[in-house]
């Protein structure tokens, strides 16, 4: 069996599924996310930490275990960002431009890893959100890439409509703040540049997941070994090694940087390269004091210290006014819960059926950079939808049953009667009342005018009223609930409706 072809087959499939999952179709996304995201390292780790022993968190343990056996296969088989880089390498480097052995700047990824973990423990997810490979890929897939797909879709709709074909429909992109677009296109550019210039160098210098799995892979059971008797030092393997971890001069392969792509085995004419069991050689490599590595290491270590000393929790939520705190989706339970889970992959943003979910930039403070929030100017949270919780891989938005979701209060409504059309003009409006799905807004008749009134017990804060309200600025607004609560279920008073009028044969006119 050709392991390289197997790798290509699996990774292509995984990549296509990932792209599909991020294209926003509710059915496809919810189906795919359950299986696909089970094996994403950071989301699974967060699930594991926060919901001890929960089945969903076990994906992370399985990955760790598998890495102990097979090395960093995650990076080549399952990581969408890794596969994306492989595609870039394939397209932009082809087979003409050969890879070469790269010096290892081990300290940089390790410092970044430590920094990421330390800041996360201290309560700031800024590095997790920025660097987690799955989330980084998610933002690329959900914003620039999805925009492109929707643009093509809408072009096709325009053509089809000329022929009265309404099979496709116009799809609207969710609102993307410029800052978020900059970040996602910027990270796309960085990853692209890294992959074109030096293969998988991003995974081996910046990615914290890569760094962690690299440490594990030092001790992995299976690894790539050069048979010193057979090798003719033809450098075929070095030329195809994207990670640049084959040192032909020493006939060594650095297992901590190897991403298990199996290219080298495929390239070796002399079968001098083998993927086999070998006990780990516990050496941390030779310390070669060169000016370059000294500089890099010093920068990394001092960066870690500085960042740890730096007030990382700029503008924390506690200091915010209630009105400023973003509204979080049903299932995220409380702002505190949401802050400890979300990695800003924006899958929920992409799947949201009403486009009410938008990425925030710094609204949660620096420590919650790029997390999603509900923006009722963009839409409202559909009463009959719980898609975001179904797809969330980290448990930041817990999957709620539809009946639970319908009673989850994510915000509190308030009506400013000084702005409301009905109270100001004494003319009927009812835009909020007809949108309200929970009977929280009800009419009160005073002198032949129906005035809207609010019963907070039934309000779930879905924002249908705020979205519908025709006044500018809105007369009816929803503010977030820091801790979600349960609304009362509306039970209509005994009906006065006659169910059938079979006996009544006449007309009232």
């Amino acid at each position, binding site marked *: 069996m050709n392991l390289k072809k197997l790798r290509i087959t699996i990774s292509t499939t995984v990549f296509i599924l990932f792209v599909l999952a991020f294209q926003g179709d509710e059915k496809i996304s919810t189906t795919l996310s359950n299986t696909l995201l089970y094996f994403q390292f950071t989301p699974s780790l967060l699930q594991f930490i926060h919901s001890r022993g929960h089945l969903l968190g076990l994906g992370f343990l399985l990955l760790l275990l598998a890495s102990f056996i097979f090395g960093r296969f995650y990076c080549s088989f399952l990581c969408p960002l890794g596969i994306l880089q492989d595609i870039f390498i394939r397209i932009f480097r082809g087979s003409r431009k050969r890879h070469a052995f790269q010096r290892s700047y081990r300290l940089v990824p390790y410092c970044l890893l430590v920094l990421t973990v330390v800041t996360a423990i201290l309560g700031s997810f800024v590095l997790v959100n920025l660097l987690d490979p799955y989330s980084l890929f998610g933002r690329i897939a959900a914003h620039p890439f999805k925009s492109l797909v929707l643009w093509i879709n809408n072009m096709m709709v325009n053509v089809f409509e000329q022929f009265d074909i309404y099979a496709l429909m116009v799809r609207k992109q969710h609102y993307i703040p410029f800052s978020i677009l900059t970040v996602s296109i910027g990270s796309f550019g960085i990853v692209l540049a890294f992959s074109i210039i030096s293969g998988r160098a991003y995974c081996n210098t910046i990615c914290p997941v890569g760094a962690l799995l690299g440490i594990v892979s030092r001790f992995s059971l299976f690894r790539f070994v050069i048979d010193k008797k057979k090798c003719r030092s033809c450098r075929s393997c070095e030329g195809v090694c994207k990670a640049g971890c084959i040192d032909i001069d020493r006939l060594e392969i650095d297992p901590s940087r190897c991403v298990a792509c199996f290219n080298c085995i495929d390239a070796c004419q002399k079968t001098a390269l083998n993927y086999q069991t070998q006990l780990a050689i516990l050496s941390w490599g030779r310390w070669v004091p060169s000016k370059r590595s000294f500089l890099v290491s010093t920068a990394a270590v001092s960066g870690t210290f500085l960042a740890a000393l730096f007030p990382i929790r700029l503008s924390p939520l506690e200091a915010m006014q209630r009105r400023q705190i973003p509204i979080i989706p049903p299932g995220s339970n409380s702002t505190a819960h949401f802050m400890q889970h979300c990695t800003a992959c924006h899958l929920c943003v992409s799947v949201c059926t009403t486009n009410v979910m938008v990425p925030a930039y710094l609204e949660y403070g620096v420590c919650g950079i790029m997390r999603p929030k509900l923006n009722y100017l963009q839409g409202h949270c559909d009463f009959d939808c719980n898609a975001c919780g179904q797809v969330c891989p980290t448990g930041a938005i817990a999957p709620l049953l539809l009946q639970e979701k319908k009673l989850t209060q994510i915000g509190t409504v308030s009506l400013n009667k000084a702005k409301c059309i009905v109270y100001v003009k004494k003319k009927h409006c009812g835009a909020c009342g007809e949108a309200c799905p929970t009977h929280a807004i*009800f009419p009160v008749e005073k002198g032949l005018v129906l005035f809207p009134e609010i019963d907070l017990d039934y309000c779930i804060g879905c924002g249908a009223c705020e979205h519908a309200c025709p006044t500018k600025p809105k007369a009816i607004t929803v503010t977030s609930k820091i801790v979600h609560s349960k609304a009362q279920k509306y039970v209509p008073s005994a009906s006065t409706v006659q169910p059938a009028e079979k006996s009544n044969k006449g007309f009232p006119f």
Partner: protein
Amino acid sequence: MPVIMNKLNSKERREFLKKSLATGVAVGGSFLWGTPEILFAKAASSGTPDLVAVKNGEPDAMFNQAIFMMGGMKKFVKKGQTVLVKPNISFARKPEIGATTNPLLVKSIVAHCFGAGAKKVYVFDNVASSSYGMAQKCYKESGIGEAAKSAGALVAPGDNEKYYQKVTIPGAKALVSTEVHELVLEADVFINVPILKNHHYTYQSIAMKNLMGVVWDRMKYHSLDLEQSIADFCLFKKPDLNIVDAYRVMQRFGPRGSTPENVALKKTLLVSNDIVAVDAAASKVYGMEPEKVRYIQLGHDLNIGNMNLNELNIRRHVIGG
């Protein structure tokens, strides 16, 4: 296409037989009661009635009867014409809630249009929620998308501004200009198919209110003067036919509705080309005097139609009665 038309024809033939039988009974009965004009209603020989009311049947059977009493669909739809059927699909709710037009009725109307030789029949609605994606949910949940498609209609989208064109309404008191769906401007025949239901803030939602679903900015109505705007729009366009579905009538918690328990099974269908008259009659079916529903009065005052039902030529029919 010919296959479907053959089917329709055979179905219509069957319906005709049934109706002939029914009218036969009605004729006999009416002679006994001394009201022979009902006899002529079936052939519409005494001129088109202003309003037809049918009761106690399934939605499709009632429509078959009503359109027959109106003189047949061929009177409204000519061969090769394009028809727009505009039901109320404003909420993503099941037909049992009574928030959306009965899908069986829509299907039956579409079939009749094709039976009369229509080239194309479009069905669309600009749903109540302007949030993205709600329109598709409404089309699906209400069952209308499916039903209309099965009868051969083109279910067109109404949830994008690009389909709407700006128009001015001469004589309007509040709604001087608005954006109207291009299908309303392009279609040869415009059939309005509202459902009669309770409305928290206008008391009733019937035919005139249903026309809010052909404009883009519904909220403009709300911010100007809801009822005056509803009446004003009829100055721009009066549907060629208004078919009010009063099969299941939502009595409370409108327009969105609550549970099927708040729905009264009235099994009534009203057809008229006078949008004000049909609203006045429907309001009475609901159990409310039309004077209370402000836009009906405003429509009457603007000479859009006649809300005084006693001045109208009304044909009534009770199926099986």
